[in-house]
């Protein structure tokens, strides 16, 4: 341990994660905080990190206010409808009213936007989406962050947040290690913005061989967005609201451009429109929500799952018609090449040419992604002009820990942000963090040497577990004293899959299963004290696993608390199969006590800041 070098960096604003939200925060922080020291820390390299690392073929959130295509209240109605009524409308409205200025900057910076030749407007893929040639989306955006930051640290995984030793519940920085050099990094900061990744692969994935942990959604997103705030006692919201994605089979290529732009559609193996077959059954579960327009994504998933269970699979996307148009064929292929190349690889390997063969679809394992189509994440303050009293405590996007801000996957309640909305939310958090510092809220922070030295012992323990434990091995590789990160991950994924509503049970769970899941997760948490890492890369794997595990505990507690099935198609509470607006038209909020590690749950009112009237006219 003594040989590990320690670096201490003092800054004003520390941004954890250099994905879309983190780069947005780093960029904007410089505008408002000209003389502040701004540091961004990234686990990979910000040129190719986060969910947009591989590229993106559409910007999924653009209002087009300049042409009155949509207004922020329209987006609130859309997200509210898709999430079955449960969103933080203040946060959604706030993101939506700013997102156009973000997209206009991307255009100026050189991101190739497709434009309608006649009108000159951005080419719409759907009501909210505009089409881009986005293979280099992330390197372009990263350039902006690099020009704003005092320093960007790549290849450092942040494992813990530091707290102020003087004032209770105030942030003091973060610590982590460089997975190449092994050096220990201490970042003291006046304000911290968590812009890390959501939780992929906490549930057992469909690919369990070579493709395990390598198939989209962003496999490196290991739940740090949630684990870091949960561990210091920040409140979380809607963590039960995982998503199951309807995707092209095996490669998990997204279906958005296919449905919206190419106008392809789904059918069962007999060529039937199966969705309408399940209308009455769905109505018996959720009532009039099935009549909403557009149909909430979870309910379309529900029909898919029911149809496959009833023997109508495989479900196909009908591409043969659209792909006869050479332009649409090109769009269909480039959609994957610049975003999810693995899907093009799968089609090439299986001789699937969508011009002649309708490709198969599947429903994925569940994911927890607060920037995508779920509301899971931290409970944050909204903006002063839009938030009711329960939702406002001084600084936009500040968590319930003073000086700790969030953006992107971290922030709960504001689904459907996607890339542009996450960047925008990073900008909002950064401005608020600058104001927090200017208001002298961060004065007198003290982080003792003891605090970060104690954490150092904890962080490097898996290396010691391995070094000591391997002495007990007389043959082979199995030690009685430690488990490897991959073994722990497989146990976690199996617990979540079998007890918390994964693919093994067709997304079904109930209170008894959740209680058993929590018991097994507790033992896993204890066993992770004995995880062994043979090198720094495995040390990263060990900490990714620990972050996934604490996130999973929170997801399971929330799933147990909400005694209804709010989102059939995402998961089912078999003991409460119906949507229950009388008791559960509310947001769920949790807090894990850092000392006792016990979760407490509460219901918080959902406020509707936008009415429904115009929605009906628009549809």
């Amino acid at each position, binding site marked *: 341990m003594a040989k590990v070098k320690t670096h201490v960096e003092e800054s004003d604003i520390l941004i954890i994660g250099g994905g879309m939200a983190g780069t947005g925060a780093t960029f904007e922080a410089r505008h408002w905080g000209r003389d502040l020291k701004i540091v961004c820390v990234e686990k990979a390299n910000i040129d190719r990190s986060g969910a947009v690392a591989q590229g993106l073929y559409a910007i999924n959130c653009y209002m087009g*206010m300049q042409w009155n295509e949509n207004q922020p209240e329209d987006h609130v109605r859309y997200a509210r409808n898709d999430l079955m009524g449960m969103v933080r409308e203040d946060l959604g409205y706030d993101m939506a009213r700013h997102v156009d200025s973000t997209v206009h900057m991307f255009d100026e910076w050189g991101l190739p936007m497709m434009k309608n030749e006649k009108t000159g407007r951005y080419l719409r893929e759907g009501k909210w989406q505009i089409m881009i040639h986005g293979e280099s989306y992330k390197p*372009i955006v990263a*350039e902006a962050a690099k020009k704003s930051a005092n320093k960007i640290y790549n290849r450092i995984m942040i494992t813990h947040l530091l707290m102020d030793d003087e004032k209770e519940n105030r942030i003091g920085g973060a610590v982590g290690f460089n997975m190449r050099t092994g050096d220990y990094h201490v970042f003291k900061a006046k304000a911290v913005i968590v812009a890390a990744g959501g939780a992929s692969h906490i549930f057992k994935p469909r690919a369990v061989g070579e*493709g395990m942990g390598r198939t989209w959604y962003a496999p490196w997103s290991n739940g740090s967005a949630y684990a870091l705030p949960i561990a210091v006692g920040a409140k979380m919201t809607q963590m039960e609201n995982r998503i199951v994605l309807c995707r092209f089979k095996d490669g998990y290529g997204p279906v958005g451009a296919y449905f919206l732009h190419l106008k392809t559609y789904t059918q069962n193996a007999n060529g039937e429109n199966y969705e309408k077959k399940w209308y009455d059954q769905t109505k018996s579960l959720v009532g009039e929500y099935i009549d909403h327009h557009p149909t909430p994504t979870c309910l379309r998933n529900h029909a898919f799952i029911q149809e496959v269970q009833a023997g109508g699979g495989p479900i196909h996307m009908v591409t043969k018609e659209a792909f006869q148009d050479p332009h649409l064929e090109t769009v269909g292929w480039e959609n994957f090449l*610049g975003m999810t190349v693995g899907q093009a690889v799968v089609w090439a390997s299986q001789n699937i040419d969508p011009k002649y063969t309708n490709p198969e679809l599947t429903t994925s394992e569940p994911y927890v992604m607060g920037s995508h189509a779920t509301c899971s994440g931290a409970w944050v303050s909204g903006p002063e002009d*839009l938030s*009711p009293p329960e939702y406002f405590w001084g600084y936009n996007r500040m968590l319930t820990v003073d000086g700790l801000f969030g953006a992107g996957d971290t922030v709960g309640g504001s689904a459907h942000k996607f890339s542009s909305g996450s960047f925008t939310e990073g900008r909002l958090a950064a401005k608020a963090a600058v104001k927090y510092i200017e208001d002298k809220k961060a004065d007198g922070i003290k982080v003792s040497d003891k605090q970060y030295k104690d954490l150092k012992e904890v962080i490097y323990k898996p290396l010691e577990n391995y070094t000591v434990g391997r002495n007990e091995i007389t043959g082979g590789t199995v030690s009685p004293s430690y488990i490897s990160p991959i073994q722990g991950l497989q146990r976690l994924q199996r617990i979540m899959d079998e007890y918390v509503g994964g693919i093994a049970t067709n997304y079904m769970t109930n209170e008894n299963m959740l209680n058993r899941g929590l018991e097994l997760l507790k033992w896993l948490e204890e066993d992770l004290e004995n995880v062994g890492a043979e090198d720094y890369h495995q040390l990263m794997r060990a900490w990714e696993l620990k972050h996934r595990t604490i996130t999973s505990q929170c997801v399971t507690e929330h799933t147990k608390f909400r005694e209804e099935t709010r989102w059939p198609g995402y998961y089912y509470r078999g003991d409460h199969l119906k949507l229950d607006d009388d008791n559960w038209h509310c947001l769920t909020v949790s807090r894990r006590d850092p000392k006792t590690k016990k979760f407490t749950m509460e219901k918080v009112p959902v406020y*509707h800041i936008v009415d*429904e009237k115009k929605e009906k006219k628009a549809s």
Partner: protein
Amino acid sequence: MKACPNHAIDVRGYADFAPMGHSVRVRREEEKGTISWRIKFRNGTEKNFVSPITTKPWGKFIPKLAEEDKPNQGEITTQRLYTEPKGLNIDGDLPTVSKDSFKKGVYY
């Protein structure tokens, strides 16, 4: 797949679902501002695509905010972000909602 973004690389699919005999080759050229793809199917079918990766000389039009105009006095207390409201291309200021219209716990 992007470990070596400036040179042509081949990829093969994961063995648990991708039969062999296919390839996807990619070449990304920053100076030309393009990326080119060649897809070979297991049955020999071949498809080629080229896409732009940027419309401007690399990085030249991205501002260094430390050298730009400073925000106006007091602007930190508004809801505006950098370039706003001008950058929204709309008439007037940022939209907002009156708190009088908020409704607690009703079913939309």
